[in-house]
């Protein structure tokens, strides 16, 4: 893990190349996170690849519902030689959830970006085949957003067995 | 002359009898509930999109033809192998010539590359 100062140094280098790319750096329980502008995500990943983080372990979406901008996409990078991990976070609003796709430079992001699109509705521009991957093709709604109802049926007990919606009284 | 063929005839008769009986019982006693989806082609649970006029590649027929050729050869060897002592050495030489001819055919086919899957 790059320790807190290492993270600041990396943020410093990126800021030299692109002044307002890095919005914030978070260091929590030994995990370094760079919060980055959505438009600058591809260049930041390239500079991190230059610093040795050549393996993308994971790409996943988060819904920070009460806070705005609400949808987050997190890239976990790994440096196999010096066994070092860093993560890059991008925050997008729900009304224009557009992030550049990194599938051409990082092939592992293909299915994972499709899953984030399927579950959160973040549109990855430039993705070769952006379709739903887990839900049926013609499914409306993005299930893993916090405001999407969890669904399922009410469990029937003796006290509510006679007026449960959907079951004949 | 007929007597020597009796076992074969009995065998064929019995086989068709038992087979026919089972088929009849199944069709007579089994339930008949024709449903439209039963007649659809089964493609791992999905509606199938294979076009009806799809023709299989030529390689399949080639391999099938070669198989039939050499399979019949083996079938001819069975009767000879069973009664080799009775037929004497003449049949032995005859069989060797027969196998030799087919080996030539095999080598030809092999060199022409029909055996590799194309």
């Amino acid at each position, binding site marked *: 893990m790059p320790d807190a100062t290492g993270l600041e140094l990396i943020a410093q280098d990126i800021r030299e190349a692109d002044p307002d790319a890095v919005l914030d750096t978070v260091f929590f329980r030994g995990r370094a996170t760079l919060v980055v502008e959505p438009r600058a995500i591809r260049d930041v990943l390239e500079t991190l690849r230059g610093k040795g983080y050549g393996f993308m372990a994971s790409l996943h979406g988060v819904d920070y519902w009460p806070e705005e901008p609400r949808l987050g996409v997190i890239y976990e990078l790994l440096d196999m030689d010096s066994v070092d991990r860093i993560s890059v976070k991008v925050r997008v609003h729900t009304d224009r959830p557009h992030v550049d796709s990194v599938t051409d430079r990082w092939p592992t992001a293909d299915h994972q970006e499709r899953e984030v699109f399927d579950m959160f509705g973040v549109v990855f521009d430039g993705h070769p085949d952006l379709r739903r991957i887990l839900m049926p*093709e*013609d499914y409306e709604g993005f299930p893993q957003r916090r405001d999407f109802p969890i669904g399922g049926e009410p469990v029937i007990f003796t006290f509510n067995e006679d007026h449960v919606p959907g079951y004949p009284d | 002359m007929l007597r020597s063929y009796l076992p074969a005839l009995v065998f064929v008769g019995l086989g068709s009898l038992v087979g026919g009986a089972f088929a009849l019982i199944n069709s007579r006693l*089994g339930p008949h509930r024709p449903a439209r989806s039963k007649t659809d082609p089964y493609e791992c649970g999905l509606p199938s999109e294979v076009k009806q006029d799809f023709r299989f590649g030529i390689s399949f027929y080639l391999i099938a033809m070669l198989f039939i050729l050499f399979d019949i050869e083996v079938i001819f060897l069975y009767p000879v192998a069973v009664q080799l002592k009775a037929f004497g050495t003449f049949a032995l030489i005859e069989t060797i010539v027969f196998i030799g001819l087919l080996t030539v055919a095999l080598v030809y086919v092999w060199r022409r590359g029909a055996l590799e899957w194309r």
Partner: protein
Amino acid sequence: MEIERHHSQDLLRGLSEEDLERHVEERVLTTTLDRALHWARGNSIFPMTFGLACCAIEMMAIVGSRVDVARFGFEALRATPRQADLIILSGRISIKMAPIIRRLYDQMLEPKWAIAMGACSSSMGVFNNYALVPADKFMPVDVHVPGCPPRPEALMHGIVKLRAQVLGDPDQGWRERYRAAGTEEVVDAPVEGAQADNVFVGRGGETSGA
């Protein structure tokens, strides 16, 4: 058994002489044939290898040597619905998989039975959420095996119970068996798009779900 005896007694009371004769003679003749038929069917049901999720691993375990399903004639696990007459829904049924399972069930041999193995296929089990459908919602199920995943012995108990039901029960289509007449979804004339086995009416030509 005594339920059937009461049933047949009040049935006979109302019959006159020759109807009584014909009824008894007909019953005696068919019962022996039926019983032989059910005996043959009960002991040679071919289950379909249909592993969905975790219960599939336990379903594979019943084919193993410790809890051997071959003792009851269930061993010939068939891969295609054309040769199988029992479908064991071992695992969670997601909404994307439901139309496919319904189609498989339709394409199975008659007479056919269905076992909903595990809590997930019987009642969405642990995951009571948007993604799952209980098996009863779209197909008739004969035996529900509880457990998550049920032990191989529990599934064996379910299979033996199904076998007992088959032996004792005259063969009926599932609509007669569950008195569900009038629930036919597939009208004879294929109405455009309204197919029972396609819960999501996909666009024509394109494979639905692809």
